[in-house]
């Protein structure tokens, strides 16, 4: 995976799905591969435009950093923030065991 012209292989799709944290089933990979190849094929037109010396424009507004006044504000109550959590215990979120859990 080093230049934009390499065709997107099924292993690449599997790898990107892993990076994206999406458990995409094996039977859906070929169609997704075809769709991504079609979209990337169109996007390939960007390579034909001369961009020499152009500064990337990440944002349309040329705003400088804006600092908030250093004044404490009331935070949202913990109970309100936890109300949408799928699993809680007291004021904590419940997650699977972390240490030794991640396979990648």
């Amino acid at each position, binding site marked *: 995976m080093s230049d934009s012209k390499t065709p997107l292989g099924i292993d690449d799709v599997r790898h990107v799905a*892993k990076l994206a944290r999406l458990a995409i089933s094996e039977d859906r990979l070929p169609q997704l591969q075809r769709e991504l190849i079609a979209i990337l094929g*169109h996007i390939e037109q*960007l390579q034909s435009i001369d*961009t020499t010396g152009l500064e990337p424009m990440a944002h349309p507004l040329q705003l400088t950093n804006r600092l908030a006044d250093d004044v404490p504000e009331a935070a*949202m109550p913990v109970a309100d923030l936890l109300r949408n*959590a799928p699993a809680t215990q007291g004021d904590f979120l419940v997650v699977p065991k972390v240490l030794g859990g991640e396979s990648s």
Partner: protein
Amino acid sequence: MSAHSLDTNDLVSLRDDIRSRKTSACATVGAYLARIESQNPTLNAFRETFADDARASASRVDQAIAAGDPVGPLAGVPIAIKDNIVTRLGRTSCSSRILENYRSPFDATVIERLTTAGAILIGKTNMDEFAMGSSCETCAFGAVRNPWDTSRVPGGSSGGSAAAVAANLCAAALGSDTGGSIRQPASLCGIVGLKPTFGRVSRYGLVAFGSSLDQIGPLTHSVRDSALLYQCMAGDDHHDSTCAPHPVEDVVTTLDETPRTFRVGLPLQYRKGNSSAVDAAVTRAVEHFRTMGAEIVDVDLPLTDVGISTYYVIAPAEACSNLARFDGIRYGHRTASPSAQDLFDLYAQSRAEGFGPEVQRRIMLGTYVLSAGYYDAYYRRALQIRRLIKREFDAAFALCDVILGPTSPTAAFSLGGVTDPLSMYMCDVYTVNTNIAGICGISLPAGFDESGAARLPVGIQLQAQAFAEPLLFKIARGYERAQGGREQIAG
């Protein structure tokens, strides 16, 4: 309480009638709720309505007016909210399974501003899932239908809001526009849709899609309504550091001051591949502008065609970063699968179950263009071309005050009529560059496509420089008057 027939349905007239007690807020809310109840089973424009709260708010407005207390500029008018703008009332699902039961602990800044101005929240509207789509067919809870012809799409992603306004199920609605998601459905539904300048309206409480592109804006019955809602919402917000500190000029009282002369730019690149009805609408608009005293000038936007490619690098890149927060931990859907034993599987399975196909496709695309070895070839290059697109607009606006063209190349298409993702992306060829450059644009009703069995609305778009909303509104209002206002759906 007498029933209200809603024969005045633009927001400003309705507001005036409520204030002068020709009708009441309670009767208005009742009439809209009845219309929603009868039409929503067909249109699927609303996710949910806030009947009890809306009636209670209406009653407070009526009491205040009866007591002679001062009321806000939106007092008593029912407004619908796209379901990616958070409200304490009800749920905010983004029309996605992953947020199906999400209840926000806070109101978005725009919600606070509208309700402070007296508006009544009537309900939340359906949308393409996470605002990713141009037809409202990616909605996880069923497609939305176009009220002009229910076999056709309303456009997207703010299609629920557009259909709700077009069918007169609310006085106005809010949408969000990342690449055309307010303007294109407004065009397909025959109403007015504004994408304000980037940074003009606070995004605090808008579920983020493309952070350098997203803007909230109104979908309305008229330009006057659009200007009023814009004015109530625009302006700095300390909760959103990307909000522009520029002062908000008065656009409401100056609205009818259409300049005696102004220049309308007509890009050659906007006249390719449109349906004949859309080209005819632009030609008619040119004549209206000439009658208004405008000078028509040719402008050149050769990068128009490159917009979709640029957009489909930048927007998915930003989306895959923003949507990383949906991981089944703090809120949203968590997989119940016993095979999700570790964190990785919990994330990956929750996300695969919760996100629909189009959202997954865009997350994949965004992850790919940002991944090692591809960042420079795609993302960095797209940001460089973004600068070229901005320069191209700057050069055009040196020659004209507004740029005129179609909003969408065609009128509404049939449900299921566009199945290939890339073809769907092409629907936004005239709208994405507005967001890429961060300028403002408005879609206006411009007649009908009469070539099929049902008459279908077509729209024109006017684009103006960043922060040129006051001029944009004046010219749009002049066009609206010259053109004779929008035609309502019969019945």
